[in-house]
Structure formats: C-alpha cells, structure tokens
C-alpha cells in the first residue's frame, strides 16, 4: 500500500462522510447554517487534499515482514481480549497475561516475558489500589462474594 492507494481511500471516505452528512435532518427552527455545512467543508477539504496524495505521492512506507505483522496482530488481539476481560476476571490475571504477551512480542524470551508480566501486574496493582486508591478488583468478583 502506498500514498496513491491511501489517497484514493481517503477520497472515498471523504465522499462517504459527505454523503452521510446530506442525510442529516435539519430541524425546522435551525440556525442559518445548520448541522450539515461544517461536515461538508471538512469532507471537501479532505477530498481536495487526498488528490494531492494521489498526484504527488511520497516514498512508499516500509511495511513489516510477515512475522512482524503477525506479532502486531497478536498484540492487537490480546489488547482487545484484555479490554473485555478486565471487568469479569479482575485485574491481576488479565494484566499478567496481557503484559507477558506484549513483552514477548518485543523481546522473544519466554521466562523473562512471564516475569515481566507477573511483576508489572502485581506492581501496578499495588500502586493503583493502595497509593492511588483506585477501586480495582484483584480477582474475579465471584471468587469472594
């Protein structure tokens, strides 16, 4: 993917933004400008600017190798899982797992990453809970009702 393709993508998105702005309702008692005009201006500017990217693209970005790309995907997935698990599973376990996995993606050493994760999880919990007074739960709430 290079500047040209991104330029086309942005042009399409600007058009879509413009189109969805036309669908906005304007109430009967509206100000002279209404809720549509500003979105129109934004999408027009973006549309014009995207042409500059298409006409005079800069150097192609260097994309990561497939292995790095899979590391990045794993990081995104673990972050999403973390976002969902923070409430039901408590702080300690999800944080330890997530931090370990992230650490492993940066430096591939299993035991070291595991220690990093556990250390961060416990350390941050102590700081957040006891120094900053956040209402965090260490364990899932069903462990101790």
């Amino acid at each position: 993917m290079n500047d040209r393709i991104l330029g086309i993508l942005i042009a399409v998105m600007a058009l879509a933004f413009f189109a969805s702005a036309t669908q906005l309702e304007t109430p009967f008692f509206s100000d002279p400008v209404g809720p549509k005009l500003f979105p129109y201006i934004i999408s027009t500017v973006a549309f014009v600017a995207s042409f500059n990217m298409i006409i005079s693209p800069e150097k192609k970005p260097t994309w990561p190798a497939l292995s790095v790309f899979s590391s990045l995907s794993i990081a995104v997935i673990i972050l999403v899982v973390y976002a969902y698990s923070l409430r039901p599973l408590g702080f300690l376990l999800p944080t330890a797992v997530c931090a370990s996995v992230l650490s492993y993606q940066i430096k591939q050493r299993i035991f070291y990453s595991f220690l990093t994760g556990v250390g961060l999880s416990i350390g941050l919990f102590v700081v957040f809970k006891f120094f900053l007074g956040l209402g965090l739960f260490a364990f899932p709430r069903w462990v101790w009702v």
Partner: protein
Amino acid sequence: MLFQDGYGSEMELFANLSLGFSIALTTTTLMLAVIGCILGTMIGALPGLGPTNGVAILIPISFTLGLDATQALVLMTSVYYGAMYGGRISSILLNIPGDEPAVMTTLDGYPMAKNGRAGDALVLSGFASFIGAFLATIGLMLLAPMLAQVAFYFGPAEYFALYLLAFCTLGGLGSNNQAKAAISVCIGLGIAMIGVDGSTGLTRFTGGNLHLFDGIDFLVAIVGLFAITEIFVFIESHGKETAIGVKLEKISIPVKEIIYTRWTVLRGSCIGFVAGLLPGAGASIGSFLAYMSEKAVVKDNSQFGKGDPRGIAAPEAGNNAAAGGALIPMLTLGIPGSGTTAVLLALLMTLNITPGPLLFNERPEVVWGLIATLLIANVMLLILNVPLVKFFTRILQVPASILLPGVTMISFVGIYSLSGSHFDLLLMIGFGILGYFLRKFDIPSVPVILGILLGGHMEVSLRRAMVLSDGDWTYLLSSPICIGLWVAAILGFVAPIFLKSLFKKPERIKD
C-alpha cells in the same frame, strides 16, 4: 480602552504574583510540583515516552487522586516542564528524540556526547533549558494578561479565524507535507462531529451506537494515538532503539562554555518564546527556528552538526521558551501550540476550566498559582537536571520490553477508571491502530488531536457568527482582527510551500 491601567499594572502584577505564590507554596502544591518535576524528567528521558504521551497517560490517573483544579494543573504542568528538560537526556545520550522538537538537540548533542563530552552537553543544555523556561515564564506573566484583555474583543467570527489560523500554521509550518497535515486535521474535525449536535440536539455520525452519543472523549483518542501506537511501533522495531548509545562518565560544570553560549541562549529563548505564541504550530517549531537562526547568525558555523555547544544551547533554550510561550495562547484563547499543550488543554476542559480571557478574572488563583508554580518548578528542575542528572540517565536502561507493556497497562487502567466501559478501551485500541498507520504514511498525528479538541468549538463559532449576521458570510471578515487572522492563516499555510528549502527540517543524524 486597551491597557489603560498602565499606572496600576505593576502593583497588580505583584499582587497577582503574591496570590500565586501563596497558593504554590502550600505543602501539598509544593509536593505535587516536586513529584511532577521528577515524573516529568523521567518521562522525558525515557525513550519511546515523549512529553505528549507521558502527560496523556497521567491525566486519567491524576483525576483519581481527587485533586482540585489548581492542584491537578500544577502537577501536570510540572510534568510538562519536566518532560521538556528530560527530553534532552535521551536526545543527547541515545540520539533518540522524545518528541519532534527534541530532534534539533540530537544534531549537536549526540556528536558532542560521542566525543566523550556527554556530561558537558547535559549540563550545558540543562542551563540553556533553565534560562529559556525562566524567560518564557516571565514573558507569560507579562504578556498573558494583556492578551487576555485583547481576547475580550474576540467574537465568534474572530474565534473562527483563530481556529483556522491554528490549523493552517500546524499544516504549513509544522509539517513537511501540507496535504497530509490537512488530511490529519480533517480526520480530527470529522471525529469531533460525532455525537449530539449542541445547536439542534440531533445526533450525527453515530451509526445508532449509544456509546457514541456523547461523542468521542478526547482523552481516549490522545492516549490511543500516542501511548498505544508506541507499543506497535516498538514491537515492529523489536525494541532495537533502546540500545545504550554513549557512556556518561563524570559530571562537571563547563563554566567556559556556559559563558561562551550566553548570547546564543538569549537569542534562542527570544525566538522560541515568540514562536511559542503562534497558535497551532508554535511550540513544535521553537527549537527548529532557534537552531536554524543561530546557525545563520554566527560567524563560523562549520562545527554545527559535529558537536558545537551553540548547537545544543540554542535549540534547548528555544524549545523550553516555546513550551512556556505556548501556554499563553492556550490559557488566554484556548488554542494550544503543540501536542503537549493540546493535552494540557484537554486536562483544563476535563476539569471544567474554560480557558479564555474570563479565566484571568474569574479564576485568578488557577492562573497565578500556575505561573508561580512554573517559576518554582523551573528552579527545582535545574537542581534535578544538573547535579542529579546521573540518576536520570539510569532510567534509560529500563528495557523497552518492560517499559512499553507497563505504559500500555497504565493507559488501560487510566481510561478504564474514567468511564468504566470497555467500549472506550476498544476505541483507544482503534486509535492506537490509526496512529500506527498515520505514522507509517508520515501523516502527523498531532493535528488529529487538535481537530478533535477544537472541532466542536470551531463549528459553534462559525454557526454563531452566521446567526449574528443572519447568514451573511462577509461577517467573517468584518473586523480588522478577523482580516489579520485570515491573512496570517493563509500566509502560514501557503508561504512554507514556496519557501520549502527554508522550512525544511533537517534529518536526524545517523550513527
């Protein structure tokens, strides 16, 4: 009449200052300033954690401490000033700038450190930072109340032109590719449109998602774009950038060089301060302009880029002066001059403090408490950064594989503690991914933040102006202030295109 009270203004200044010091010198405030300075220097020194993302991840945390507005502001601005000081440590020792303005310090700082003079470079830049920040704080004290008076004359048309100026200078001066900066601004403005439209009460661009009715919280966007993006970037580089560059042996005070660079520091401070006043791009171009003009002014510039002490003093003084100068448009007009001041503005907004001329009359304790704290913090930072600099250089040895997961977890807990909804966390991850792609395509991400922060206000000013004039567009150009701002905006955007060679940012030096 403007400035009619020339007679009583000095008295007023001292009265205000003593009010400020009475607030800043309480035990709690002083302690917060110390903590802020230490945290800020650490954040600035850590590679991969610049001032913007450092301040951003600390904001949610500072709310949970239950601080009042002044205290929260004192803590965060100490962090801000501290990060400006600390940024030079990784620039000089590792050749890794913490944020864009710090790039200029790497140009001569790293070569000087490689020549075995790392300690001298750190102390010299610490002094330059001190003078720059000190002069800028004095300037802030004198100029901000005046600008606040002028700001009373600003109506919606003037504000609209001012927002335009901020975005234009950000695109024109602050970036090498105007089209990409414009796209970035548009992304931010577009995101700002999401949610309930204040004037009509109808929702826009929410896709029916209830979570989006309140709009997107700018803190979520800021933390996502700056902190979460960083982890992706580091995974890609496998933490390679954290290799220790040069060793720091002993620290002494290079008196000769401090005296030698005295005019450089003064020039750099003045240029940086004036640049900082410019809404939009101010603080980020302060160090750049200071370095380039110093290089142009001196007789023999052959050593620039090879470890010339003037090449360290100028950008550091400029950078810190610009950081102080940028607080002026932020406090008086509500327009930030850089990514970090944008984050500070976000903090003010979340604390329910509306920056603007009224702030100086209605909440003098906030403004003057802040100014007094800046003066105190600056002295503390000099102490922290000259005799104790060795302690902070140890922080550089924290490996990325511990630091980055830690930062990510703190970001999650911070955002989660704000709203308690996993939707915000998912949004934050989304912004992190967006930030990664923006960086890949060399599209600056600071304009996105400014767009999100100011988009709503910009639209409201436009619509109010149109209500006042009953839809007459010429109203936007109806006052001299408006015309001046429009001209400056157009010049700020267009001139750099024609003066490309003059505004071209130098590349970072390679090992």
